[in-house]
């Protein structure tokens, strides 16, 4: 942005940069106070000790050791921590895959098959409106459909397809994944749609003129050029699911473990050092996933 400024902007730069600094100061202060300092404190407190009443400043690896207690013993099977991470990663992967397929399809339809710009905007807004409504409401809205006496079971019994209600529709892995897909496909649609709208339409014509089939064009032209949107959407969905405790709590009937839920429970018991150590580990895992996903995607250029 500043590099693109015409020369007339560059001349009084020192004055501008001071003004710019003041303008950005309150914004920056919020992130220092409510993001950087808290993160630093988490790392610091993860090395502290604690008893039932208070936190004891110090430097100990006790919290990390206790999280991985029993993990070295292969004969016992997986320890609780690794099992929980395994289950959370499993949810992340399944949800990522489903939201990617649905999100890509919806974005592709909007970007390449809807012709009038007005209709495109209207349908796009239609897809994004639920994002501004309550997540918990959207979760419990599945109850009348999937419950034991819900619409799905009533219909299936009415059609004589099943004798007794299906129990695994609600408060199960299935309902958790369903709710995640329901809530977060939007995070895939928006960035992928954004990338697709930048694709030069003449490239598609060139591909078809050169004899490419529809699928070949899709796979060799559209998918590579939507890569940035796919990566940004993937980062959103995966980080949300990795840290989630609300959706897994409500849709899993408070019975399914997740990393976020462990942290939440430990915090509510005021075991801050343990919760902090878990948060540091979660952060490390998430950062590794993101690092694996991104190779220099400049988000700023994509807007």
């Amino acid at each position, binding site marked *: 942005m500043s590099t693109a400024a015409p020369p007339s902007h560059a001349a009084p730069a020192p004055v501008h940069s001071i003004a710019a600094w003041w303008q950005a100061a309150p914004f920056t202060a919020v992130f220092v106070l409510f993001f950087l300092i808290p993160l630093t404190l988490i790392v610091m407190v993860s090395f502290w000790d604690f008893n039932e009443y208070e936190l004891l400043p110090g430097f100990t690896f006790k919290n990390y050791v206790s999280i991985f207690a029993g993990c070295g013993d292969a004969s016992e099977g997986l320890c609780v921590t690794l099992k929980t991470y395994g289950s959370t990663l499993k949810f992340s992967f399944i949800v990522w895959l489903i939201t990617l397929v649905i999100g890509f399809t919806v974005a592709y339809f909007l970007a390449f098959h809807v012709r009038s710009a007005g209709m495109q905007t209207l349908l796009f807004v239609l897809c994004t409106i639920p994002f501004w409504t309550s997540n918990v409401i959207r979760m419990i809205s599945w109850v009348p459909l999937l419950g034991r006496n819900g619409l799905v079971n009533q219909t299936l019994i009415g059609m004589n397809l099943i004798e007794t209600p299906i129990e695994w529709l609600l408060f199960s892995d299935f309902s958790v994944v369903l709710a995640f897909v329901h809530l977060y496909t939007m995070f895939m649609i928006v960035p992928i749609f954004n990338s697709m709208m930048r694709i030069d339409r003449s490239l598609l014509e060139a591909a078809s003129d050169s004899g490419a089939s529809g699928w070949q064009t899709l796979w060799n032209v559209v998918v590579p050029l939507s890569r940035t949107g796919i990566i940004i959407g993937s980062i959103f969905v995966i980080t949300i699911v990795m840290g989630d*405790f609300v959706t897994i709590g409500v849709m899993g009937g408070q019975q399914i473990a997740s990393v976020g839920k462990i942290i939440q429970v430990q915090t509510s018991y005021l075991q801050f050092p343990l919760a902090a150590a878990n948060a540091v580990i979660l952060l490390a895992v998430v950062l590794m996933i993101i690092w694996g996903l991104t190779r220099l995607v400049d988000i700023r250029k994509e807007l």
Partner: protein
Amino acid sequence: MRVREKRPASFWPLAAVFGLFVLFMYGPMLVIFILSFQGPEGGLTFPLRGLSLHWFGKLAEGLGVVDIGAALRRSLALGAAVMLCTVVLSVLAGLAFRKRLAGGNALFFIVVASLIMPSIIVSLGIGLEFRLIDSGIKAALEWLGMEGALEGYGTSLGLFTSALGAHLTWTLPFGLLIMFAVFNRFDPAYEEAARDLGATPWQGFVHVVLPLIAPSVVGIGMFGFTLSWDEIARTSQAIGDVNTLPLELQGLTSTVTTPAIYALGTVTTVVSFAVMGVTLALAWALGRGRKAKAG
């Protein structure tokens, strides 16, 4: 008008997928909207046993120990505060990023990190920060020998301290990204013209830039309010003794077994939609006003 080409064969299956997706998005919401008008005898699922406002009445009386009205007022107040802060701080920061901003890249990196950071981590960190502040204040009061103040001191965690901060870490990144999108498409020629005509930077901003970006600024306000209104994860560990409406709602999902919870869902959704409607109307009016002036 160009002649319409024939639609490709892939159009209809894709349109069907899109239709199903929209049904998937809105169907369940519509169902609880209908069920919130369930008659007094009705239950959590179909069939409807009459239509009534019975469950809205129950909701107004309060659900168990939860004071819904108070939680609603808290959420509205917090949402308004978050909206105001998000608009002002994002616009200021957006202006700053147009100039030469030392450390701008680092700041942008932090903002993106805040956006994709698992919310439970942010929430835990803020909760921790304010509890450490509490211990610090208590120790200071003790050291100063102010017994009365020490006894009266509760906690620094609260709606307009820690919870406001937690919400801003979630809304401000959206605000800044919108500002980037706005200024990437912004023609600086208007400002330069104003400057050439002798406008001060403030005049240039108020009379030229602000009217041009006004519809987007209204949009930022909507992001600020609606995201705060529904926020749970970042608030959960960072709010202290009181609860916002979505937090109460989350607690109620496991205890309330009557359609009153659907009534609550309808109420909060109506608020969200009302805010969106006002935003659209305002953005449209502002955009139209600008065009009318230009023409």
